[in-house]
């Protein structure tokens, strides 16, 4: 039973899961008791199949612990024989191994928030993975990109004096479709990039442009706008450069990078033009 979690789990997220699991052992014990309470109500739902084993497990907790092992062993053996490596079979809260299936909701929320914060740091602060760009945003998520695209659309539509709806729709469509097209462009150039990781990176790199758009909305000076947008544009491009350049071979690097810069430049033009 133990080799399967090790084989199926990998990456930083699993380390976070293990840390969270250890930190909340008491919560798991509480969850286990709650599940024990749930069992009686679950029994009537399936009397024909599991009535006798369920009743025995409910009435005799020590036998439940004893009976659990052969069941788990029997279940895990066919799985390893079939060679299914994409399925991570996890025991329930009653079993010896807690997993993300039985963790409290708050643990899930905290893990997702920590992931978003760590991904944002890769863009805001100098990227520690510039030498190995594939490791950046390995723990990808699309919540940050979604938030930044909507935020940019909101800022632009607030700044616009007329046609707010069109401005928002155009901004959202350009950014969402642009990120997808850019990723497909890299894939079609024969690059080895992961679709969602690329989407995540392009979205997070919008953060500097979001800040620039916010500053431009608050200030009316055209010269200040030019300076701010230029700085944030350079920042976004600098943040996006490593992953995109490493994804394709050096001969085609320009073909992969040019559309990325073009998208960011078009966003910058939108920010400057809308007043």
């Amino acid at each position, binding site marked *: 039973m133990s080799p399967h979690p090790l084989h*199926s789990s*990998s*990456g930083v*997220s699993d380390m976070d899961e293990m840390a969270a699991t250890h930190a909340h052992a008491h919560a798991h014990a509480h969850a286990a008791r709650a599940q024990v309470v*749930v069992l009686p*109500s*679950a029994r*009537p*739902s*399936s*009397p024909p*199949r*599991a009535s006798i*084993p*369920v009743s*025995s497990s409910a*009435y*005799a907790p020590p*036998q439940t612990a004893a*009976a659990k092992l*052969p*069941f*788990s062993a*029997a*279940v895990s053996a*066919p*799985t390893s024989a079939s060679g*299914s490596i*994409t*399925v*991570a*079979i*996890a*025991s*329930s809260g*009653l*079993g010896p191994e807690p*997993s*993300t*299936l039985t963790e409290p*909701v708050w643990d*899930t929320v905290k893990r*997702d928030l920590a992931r978003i914060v760590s991904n944002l740091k890769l863009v805001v602060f100098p990227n520690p993975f510039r030498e190995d760009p594939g490791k950046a945003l*390995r*723990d*990808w998520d699309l*919540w940050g990109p*979604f938030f930044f695209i*909507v935020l940019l*659309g*909101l800022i632009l*539509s607030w700044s616009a004096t007329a046609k*707010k*709806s069109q401005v*928002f*729709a155009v901004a*959202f*469509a350009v950014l969402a479709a642009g990120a997808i097209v850019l990723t497909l462009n890299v894939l079609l150039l024969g690059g080895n990039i*992961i679709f*969602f990781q690329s989407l995540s990176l392009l979205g997070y790199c919008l953060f500097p442009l979001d800040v620039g758009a916010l500053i431009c909305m608050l200030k009316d000076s055209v010269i200040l706008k030019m300076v701010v947008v230029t700085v944030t544009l350079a920042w976004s491009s600098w943040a996006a450069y490593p992953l995109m350049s490493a994804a394709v071979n050096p001969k085609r690097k320009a073909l992969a990078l040019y559309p990325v810069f073009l998208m960011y430049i078009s966003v910058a033009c939108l920010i400057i033009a809308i007043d």
Partner: protein
Amino acid sequence: MSTQQEVTENYANPKTCFFHVLFKASALAFYILSTLFVNNFVIIFVITVLLAALDFWVVKNVSGRILVGLRWWNEINDEGESVWKFECLDGESLARMNKKDSWLFWWTLYLAAAAWIILGIFSLIRLQADYLLVVGVCLSLSIANIIGFTKCNKDAKKNIQDWTRSALLSGSVRSHLQSAFGV
């Protein structure tokens, strides 16, 4: 006896069922009512899509694993490859899942996607490209959850079959049954 059991059977997790339905219903209701009475596209877009995203997260991380014992996610391994993970409880736990919870889970999942498709057809008929954008985002979130949980469900059914087979064939089950009858 069976009739009485059917009457007394109820949802095992009513609170989770409530939140599972709440965000879907609120996203759909807000979109329909707003397009009828409000003309501000930006507000309609932002609130509807936020509700749909919140529903996506709740179904994927909370109600999916509580109501049907399934969870799915994607991660990138050390070799830089994208791996889809489908996680489900062991066969015994899956067999104990409440049938009404499972029924509500799957039906609301499909009905929400069907509702967004119908709304998308209406937007297409009236040539409203901007509202089609809202429907496109909400529909893609719904379909992602349907695909993920459908793949989970296949593995879960295999788990139940494996557990049933091992339970029938295992000798220790007989000894435990005998001891249970003895007690």
